[in-house]
């Protein structure tokens, strides 16, 4: 028997390795229990390898994402940058629209509050405040919209000027700061009469024909008197500053800071006079 065992020991060992585990399995197959200490040790041995390989693979994937995938990231970054630029442009446009809306609201409020004549809203599309020539603003409304020469042009702050020339779809406005502009005014506080004449400087006008004896002080609001046949009465023109009363002469001299900054005005109202406007339109239209 010993010789037989010796002769077939390899086969018996293999048969044992084949059958014993199977028997163990069959014995426990219907009643599986917890892992044995030995089996738990095997699992514990596998865990460090699992963690190490996991960390290695994760690192490799991160490296892949950070290097090879960087090209895609650059393209994505460019796309996002372009999108941010577009959004920034939209934001600026929205802010602009909001400011414009506020200006238009002010203009409409001014029209409803102060004007008893029909009017046409217009947008300033060109500015030529040439110190050597006329100080003109170009608006996008013209004879086709009922505009005519000499029609007053106002903004929510006050007087801007008057229509100087009209074309089919546009018109030129002579700013109140032009040297050729003269507006009949009153000092709002004392009702003193005078004229405001342009000085060729967009930020300055002159107060003309204010008698030396009249009560005028710096800071007085000057409004249209309505006596020049162009502007209706009561529209703000500017504020008195740089008052100079000489020792002699009939008039006192002063500067007037325009109520409307003609360099910044963007929307205006043109006050219509139906009969005169129609006649002027026929004459001035190209």
């Amino acid at each position, binding site marked *: 028997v010993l010789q037989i065992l010796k002769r077939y020991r390899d086969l018996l060992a293999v048969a044992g*390795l084949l059958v*014993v*585990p*199977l028997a163990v399995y069959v014995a426990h197959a*219907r009643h599986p229990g917890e*892992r044995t200490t030995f089996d738990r040790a095997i*699992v514990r041995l596998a865990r460090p390898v699992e*963690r190490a390989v996991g960390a290695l693979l994760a690192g490799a994937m991160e490296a892949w994402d950070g290097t090879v995938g960087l090209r895609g990231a650059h393209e994505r970054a460019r796309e996002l940058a372009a999108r941010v630029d577009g959004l920034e442009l939209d934001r600026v446009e929205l802010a602009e629209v909001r400011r414009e809306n506020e200006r238009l609201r002010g203009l409409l409020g001014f029209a409803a509050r102060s004007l008893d004549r029909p009017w046409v809203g217009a947008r300033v599309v060109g500015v030529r405040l040439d110190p050597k020539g006329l100080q003109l603003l170009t608006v996008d409304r013209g004879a086709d919209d009922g505009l005519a020469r000499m029609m007053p042009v106002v903004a929510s702050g006050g007087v801007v000027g008057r229509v100087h020339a009209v074309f089919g779809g546009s018109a030129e406005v002579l700013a109140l700061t032009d040297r050729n502009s003269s507006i009949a005014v009153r000092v709002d506080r004392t009702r003193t009469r005078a004229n405001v004449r342009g000085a060729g400087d967009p930020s300055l006008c002159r107060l003309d024909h204010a008698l030396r004896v009249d009560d005028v002080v710096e800071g007085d609001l000057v409004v249209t008197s309505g006596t020049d046949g162009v502007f209706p009465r009561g529209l703000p023109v500017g504020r008195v500053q740089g008052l100079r009363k000489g020792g002699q002469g009939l008039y006192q001299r002063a500067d007037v800071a325009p109520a409307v900054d003609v360099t910044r005005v963007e929307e205006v109202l043109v006050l219509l006079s139906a009969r005169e406007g129609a006649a002027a339109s026929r004459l001035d239209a190209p």
Partner: protein
Amino acid sequence: VSARRAIAAALLALALAGAQSAALRLAGGGRWPLALPVVVVIWLGLEADLVEGAAGAAAVGWILDALAGGPVGLLASLAVAVFLLARRARGALALQGAPGFAAQAAAGTFLLGLGAVLLTRAAAAPGSAPPLAILRRVALEAALTGLAAAPLHAPLRWLGRRLEREPEAAWPGGLS
């Protein structure tokens, strides 16, 4: 009989099982089945002596059992059976190089899975028996394991040479 291959096989199976677990978690979250330790059983079948290889295969199978968390013994026994088949095939089939090794690994994985399903159905409680439809996944596991076995061929062959006690018999005749 040397135990070096058996010990090396057990350690290798542990390493491959850990690597497989980590890799499958990162690649698909376990969607793809894989049985890399079975590749070690095939390697034993190609290189090891009978008892040494059977012992190594049993160790690998036991590791698979322990990691699977079910009743132990089933995969240990089946791994020994797969080893014996691989050992039998190394002389009968003219499979060479990495493709041959991959084909044997795929076949071994499928046989291991098939045996496990059938024996579990026979031995386990009726409610816990796996359906035969799971054989599709076993086939997928076999195919993927075969694919993964091809790049392992060269390192395992190098390891076999290092463990070889007799340099003149570096690789079994049918596959060299």
